[in-house]
């Protein structure tokens, strides 16, 4: 009964949404004078950044990104708070599967490569697809690999939070530096360099690197915290 009601309700909702979006139309320009034209123009001409998404995420809407990083940070904090146990209650961390020597050896081999890839992705965030988030996530998967492959592999919680904090402070601090130099928060105060060069885009790479470290540390923290939780019946 409940299923039928929910189905009908959702069907009605779906019809309304579908009508709305079908009318909006797929792949056509929906509006004129949007902000995107400005973004596309400024990105190349003034910021000297090739990846417009990066320039939007880090500069035009950098405030959002700051908030987003904070959300992740809060998620880690929340996870720790929700799954908090007194010290004597903490057991061994759970293991998804026992891994063979091929896996462990492979992981060990792969780990530096993954980390390197992640670093590459976030350092080149302003030039090519990818950036702080993507790079951070890739680094986190590297740690995940190690955590899965080795039962006794552990990440220092202290170091995680130090990296996380420093990266966060870098982000907010760069923002405040812009505030002190240029007058507004997160404003670019470095020379923007030449388009498609590694050292271009002003503060964007700095921020994205900070974001990368932060995301990596946070996601590793998330996985680590959850892994340490063993269901108790």
């Amino acid at each position: 009964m409940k299923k039928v009601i929910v189905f009908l309700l959702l069907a009605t909702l779906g019809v309304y949404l579908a009508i709305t979006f079908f009318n909006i139309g797929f792949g056509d320009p929906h509006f004129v004078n949007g902000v995107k034209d400005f973004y596309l123009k400024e990105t190349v001409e003034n910021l000297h950044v090739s990846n417009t998404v990066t320039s939007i995420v880090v500069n035009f809407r950098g405030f959002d990104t700051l908030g987003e990083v904070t959300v992740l940070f809060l998620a880690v904090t929340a996870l720790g708070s929700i799954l908090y146990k007194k010290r004597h209650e903490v057991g061994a961390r759970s293991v998804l599967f026992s891994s063979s020597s091929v896996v462990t050896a492979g992981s060990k081999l792969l780990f530096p490569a993954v980390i390197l890839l992640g670093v590459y992705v976030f350092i080149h965030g302003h030039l090519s697809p990818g950036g702080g988030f993507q790079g951070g996530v890739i680094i986190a998967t590297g740690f995940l690999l190690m955590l899965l492959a080795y039962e006794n592999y552990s990440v220092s919680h202290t170091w995680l939070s130090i990296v996380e904090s420093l990266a966060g402070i870098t982000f907010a601090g760069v923002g405040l530096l812009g505030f002190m130099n240029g007058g507004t928060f997160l404003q670019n105060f470095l020379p923007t360099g030449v388009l498609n060069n590694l050292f271009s885009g002003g503060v964007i790479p700095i921020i994205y690197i900070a974001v990368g470290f932060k995301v990596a540390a946070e996601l590793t923290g998330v996985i680590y915290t959850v892994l340490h939780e063993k269901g108790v019946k």
Partner: protein
Amino acid sequence: MIYFVLIAFLLLLMIAAAIYSISQKDLLYATLATGIISLVLSILFYLLQAPDVALTEAAIGVALTTIIFLITIRNTVRFENDEDNFKSEVK
């Protein structure tokens, strides 16, 4: 034409995976299905000219989300119904 077939296939795959992930009683498979959704989504993002998003979705949706779901299933129960869980424990 191939482009069309590819997209249509991906869209259908996504719907199928979504239905599967919702209807499957074994949460392990359901989680894997969400991984497939993310994977398809990531390809779709790429086809929709959003490589940044595709990269993010691939990393977060396919890898991380699936992994924490798996860890959670490991820490809790594997089946949707309590009876199935009971059975799996008895075995």
